[in-house]
């Protein structure tokens, strides 16, 4: 379980996150939703330690993670997989080398074991015969899937994904959502996903946190999100024709 306790973050005098507290349970797909610029990415970067929080703390299964030295963070980081918005694959590496990278750097596995693991995770993200391709040769959806494969190659306890289906067509976006949800169940991970895609919210949102102007405004699940009377959330959820029709 990940516990976020009263975190705040400012940049040059502008407060981006105000006193946010929540918990993310193991085996669940937790979604952070909110408009662009609401503070979702900053929130996630605080959770994964790319930003130090000004106040509060983030605990991973009772172990403090925020505002401690990089050395102490290392152990928890090795239990964490992160999927960045653009994939963040290493351009000069092939798919196989990208997925193998954390194994090379952080484990003592033999080459054979590493190959086995790479093929295992690539199979799980439905990528075959792409091992020797470079990121530049892949489609957007494939890049996301390779990034997921790299994120789960160490069999992490915690998986973070920042807008995993941004820039993808609806069908591919849905596949990525399904994949993340499936992997969460299969590997019993605590998954936290940043999104503003309502389709993701309604299909995989077991827990949903709505962030508005840096504040946590609402928490619930995919069934409750359509029936809440919270004004700001309604404005976000029913901002498009599809969800407005759904409400009717």
């Amino acid at each position: 379980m990940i516990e976020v306790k009263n975190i705040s973050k400012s940049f040059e005098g502008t407060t981006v996150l105000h006193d946010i507290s929540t918990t993310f349970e193991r085996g669940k797909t937790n979604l952070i939703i909110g408009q662009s610029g609401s503070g979702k990415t900053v929130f996630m970067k605080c959770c994964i330690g790319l930003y130090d929080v000004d106040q509060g703390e983030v605990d991973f299964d009772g172990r403090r993670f925020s505002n401690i030295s990089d050395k102490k963070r290392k152990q928890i980081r090795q239990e964490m997989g992160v999927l960045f918005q653009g994939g963040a694959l290493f351009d000069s590496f092939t798919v196989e080398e990208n997925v193998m990278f954390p194994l090379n750097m952080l484990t003592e596995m033999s080459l054979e074991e590493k190959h086995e693991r790479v093929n295992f995770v690539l199979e799980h993200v439905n990528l075959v015969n792409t091992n020797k391709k470079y990121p530049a040769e892949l489609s957007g959806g494939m890049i996301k899937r390779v990034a997921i494969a790299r994120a789960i190659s160490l069999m992490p306890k915690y998986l973070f994904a920042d807008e995993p289906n941004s820039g993808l067509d609806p069908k591919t976006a849905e596949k990525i959502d399904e994949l993340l949800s499936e992997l969460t169940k299969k590997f019993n991970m605590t998954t936290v996903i940043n999104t503003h895609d309502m389709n993701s919210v309604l299909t995989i949102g077991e827990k949903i946190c709505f962030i508005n102007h840096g504040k946590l405004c609402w928490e619930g699940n995919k069934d409750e999100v359509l029936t809440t009377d919270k004004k700001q959330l309604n404005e976000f959820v029913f901002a498009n024709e599809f969800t407005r029709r759904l409400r009717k």
Partner: protein
Amino acid sequence: MKILYQIGEYVLLILQAFKKPDKGYVFRRQLMFDFQRLGTESIGIVAIISIFTGAIIAIQMAYNTDSPFIPKSTIGFSTRQMLVLEISPTIVSMILAGKVGSRIASEIGTMRISEQIDALRVMGINPANYLILPKITAAMIYNPILIIFSIFLGVIGGWIAGMVTGLVPSADYLLGIREWFDPFTITYALIKTVVFAFIITSVSAYKGYYVKGGSVEVGQASTDAVVASSILIIFFDLILTQLLLT
């Protein structure tokens, strides 16, 4: 104040880079990769620049020493001295600052804006150590080899130019390049080269590492890296010359 902040940031980055690599074999692989990209791939430009510079120096020396009181061997001697003392270590290093420095700054800068450096950090890997240390090490080992190569080709270039133009007889030139040779000048050239290699790679890596924004900023960082490296090379050239030759 900004310059002090940048110096502090640079020093902290270099301290991060100079930590023990997490995996020795990964470091060695990266080092080989950087030998290839920063060193071997620069051989062509170093060769062209050196041959032509040597030839130009020899012709200019012939023009400037055209007197019956000055022996022709002076042309060979002067060409060698200029190449060893200044042209090869400093000018070739400045050319490498343009080629290698811009490459390092743009590569690391692109990794920064495409979140690849963040990806390394969240994996618990020290990005400065993984990305920068092999580049600094590769340049500090390979650049002296390039500079020796440059001196050799420069001297050959001067010899060819002297023969082709008929300005310097071959025997006089060959005598000149062997006259009053002080081996310390080579040591001096190599010390300068190692210092310049460190400047080129570390300053360029710093400029790329802290890029914020997009492709325009990466381009700017690349330009800044070349400008800053060139200025620092000239500045340290003066300091090292004062320290080592006086």
